[in-house]
């Protein structure tokens, strides 16, 4: 059967799932099989509402799993928190996977009960900005869009009448559209920390668009694929060296893009202006707590140090809530961008968190969410 480290190309045996899938429908088939054969009790999937809207649901119904196929670039949600306390399989972007592992480090998720089917991710977009972009840059009516993809640095939209339009990502991002800011400087494009790492990068020749490249990362990955093969839901074959090389090249291109954009996005702030740089945006905070609520790495309940010892009555020059969170997350923030997305005062929280977390993590050569055995440095106990 399949072994750890295998590089495979495969597709869903069910023709409909294969056709509706972004590229072969393998991920959906694996998730459906996992549920069908009792490997897991539930599956976290995105319930489609329209092309730009889907909501994460937890299901035990195979049909709902099959209905959720197709990649969604403009529904930027982190799925980690939906896997808590359940025996579950889930599709996961690299930042979802990182969050799952960070929650596992904090005892909130049992990795043995969580099957993570990783998806390559070139970056996600905000639904409302995407609709505005379609009108202003692509001259397409959002209602007509049936699919989208990121390939070779271009964002491609497919419309009902079979037409395809592609514009370069950096051109879009210069005009203020394109991917969310945290996705631009993200450098984890292939979820090597998941059980399986699937995507369409490296699917070439006649299979392009109708098969999924899948790298088996660990034993749970083997179980997922063997289970799906036994269920007759998927067919796989080893990927050609050329396919593997192309996948690696695409990944390098995206990672380098991330590194170069990081330099542009993070400003060099002279020391004396630094305090003002942070205080200014944070002064508009209305203390709603959404950034803590949505943070997929935070394991605290409603009461935690950042809320219990913070009160609006103090009216300090900087909020205790933010200072405690800046410190607690400096070793665990995975820059998934959720907090910026939900901040009602449009404070670039992810940018601020990252400007603390990235230097702190780099200095300690520590990347959160990659290996459940890495103790977050803040809790490192050096017993000389």
């Amino acid at each position: 059967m399949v072994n750890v480290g295998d590089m495979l190309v495969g597709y869903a045996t069910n023709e409909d799932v294969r056709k509706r899938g972004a590229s072969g429908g393998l991920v959906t088939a694996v998730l459906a099989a996992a549920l069908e054969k009792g490997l897991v009790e539930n599956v976290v999937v995105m319930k489609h509402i329209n092309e730009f809207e889907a909501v994460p649901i937890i299901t035990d119904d195979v049909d709902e799993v099959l209905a959720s196929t197709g990649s969604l670039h403009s529904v930027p949600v982190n799925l980690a928190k939906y896997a808590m306390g359940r025996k579950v399989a889930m599709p996961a972007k690299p930042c979802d996977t990182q969050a799952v592992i960070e929650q596992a480090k904090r005892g909130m998720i049992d990795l043995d009960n969580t099957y993570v089917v990783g998806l390559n991710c070139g970056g996600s977009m905000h639904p409302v900005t995407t609709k505005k972009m379609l009108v202003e840059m692509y001259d397409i009516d959002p209602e007509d869009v049936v699919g989208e993809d990121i390939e070779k640095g271009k964002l491609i939209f497919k419309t009902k009448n079979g037409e395809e339009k592609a514009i370069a990502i950096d051109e879009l991002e210069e005009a203020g559209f394109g991917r969310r800011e945290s996705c631009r400087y993200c450098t984890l494009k292939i979820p090597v920390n998941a059980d399986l790492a699937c995507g369409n990068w490296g699917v070439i020749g006649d299979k392009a668009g109708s098969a999924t490249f899948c790298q088996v990362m660990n034993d749970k990955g083997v179980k997922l694929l063997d289970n799906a093969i036994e269920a007759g839901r998927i067919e796989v074959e080893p990927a050609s060296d050329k396919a593997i090389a192309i996948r690696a090249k695409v990944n390098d291109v995206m990672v380098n893009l991330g590194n170069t954009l990081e330099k542009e996005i993070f400003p060099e702030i002279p020391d004396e202006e630094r305090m003002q740089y942070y205080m200014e945006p944070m002064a508009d905070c209305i203390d709603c707590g959404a950034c803590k609520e949505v943070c997929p790495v935070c394991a605290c309940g409603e009461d935690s140090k950042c809320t219990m010892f913070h009160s609006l009555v103090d009216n300090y020059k900087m909020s205790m809530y933010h200072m405690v969170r800046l410190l607690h997350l400096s070793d665990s923030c995975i820059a998934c961008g959720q907090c910026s997305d939900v901040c009602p005062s449009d404070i670039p929280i992810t940018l601020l968190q990252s400007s603390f977390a990235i230097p702190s993590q780099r200095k300690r050569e520590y990347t959160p969410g990659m290996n459940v055995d890495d103790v977050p440095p803040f809790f490192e106990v050096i017993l000389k």
Partner: protein
Amino acid sequence: MIGNVYQTVCPGCNMGCGLYIREDEEGALAVDFMKSSPANLGKLCRFGMKLAHHYSKATSMVDGKEASVEDAVKAASDKLKGADVTMLGVGNTTNEESLAFSKVADALGTVVNTGMGVYSELPTECHPTVGVGITLDEIESANRIALFVDPYIQYPLLVRRILAAKKIGASVVSVGWKDLHLADENRYIDPDLYESELGLDSESVIIADVHPNTDPGWVKRMLNLALKTQAKILFMKPFVNATGVDLLCKGTGQKGISEIMDGINEGSIKTLVTLNSDPIELMPDSDAAAATLTKLDNLIVISSRDGPVNKMADIVIATEPLYAKAGSFMNVEGLLLNNSGESTTGIDSMSTLSQNLGGEAMDYQNLHNNVLESIVQKYTKPKYKELTCEVLDIGPVEEKGNLIYLYNPFMWFDQSDDNDFVMVNMNMVNKLGLSKGGMIALTSDAGTVNMRYRVEDMPDGLILTAKKLPVATEWTTIVSTEAV
């Protein structure tokens, strides 16, 4: 799917913030972010984030005992037949339910009061301007914004709109009660100087608000300012469907909620029916309001939420929670927002009630179409209307107290929030010798309360509160202050 996910609109104010409500297997609720919602991009304020605690389910009651909704409707019908009934529906529910409520009013030969007494004191050609505001996107393109509300506390999702405007060069002047971080100027000037001092023109936007306790004179002053400076004006309102209800009940004699309470006190109102509107929560002095309601012969409450008025009602017709209702809302800019829920218990109850009273039957679909035709004119949503009336006579200016309510969503539902403090400035701290981290004692003829205080930059002598206080009798009250 395990549990349920509803797409709904936050009932905190008429900004129209879309969100998901997740219901897990045991029925526990949680808020989730709906990033595709145009008004707020999924973002929520403090009240929105705490909605899981808001939707406390109501239970149908007849004369203090639990009953089925059918029995409650039957009991209500008997009580209402031939009675002189006053009906209150401020717009805390869907358009369809509000329309059904007004159909019941037709059957009873009366009208639905939206509690906004302001309308009956304004010439009708001003109504559309007060009813439907400019679009939220237009705030972002204004060149100057005059704030007569505190967006951080009262209508928080305005903050990002104003910041967006500032990013492309707009200037912001706050004429509220305390310095706002996003304001370039904070002017506590005499209201008569607004026109000359605030430097507004046709590219400017005035943001004010209207609520049941607003002084009509104040609204006229706002309208005059807009008239004289040609500035556009946006009236925020504290109820999710205030705009929809205003359009649905247009032209009917609008009694203000204080007017209704006075009527009850004078004995001219004997029977009151409310739809998702709790006078005890809505009036500045909850205890006084509760005392007034005891004078009613019949108090019938149709509500999806459990609240203090439910406990006093003779009959409670409990409808499904707001997020689960089939229906639509209209936000301040006239945008129609739909719930994804399909439950119609509220509508069916009112349909039965209406028939029992000789009125017409109704179902969700025809109500919905009616809404589309009457207030949405078949997909051309209502637009902001430039002011055309001449300058209004403001009339006598009420003398203001020094304890001022900063109305916000928590206050309209009297829902606890960890805002357990009042705001004062440093001069008051030094004058009274308040100790840091200590308390300030506020005394009015309604009693004394010790509150923690937060130091703000604001005019001398004023005390602001974002939480209802037992000492406050009006929306501004005169209190004496000393250190505890």
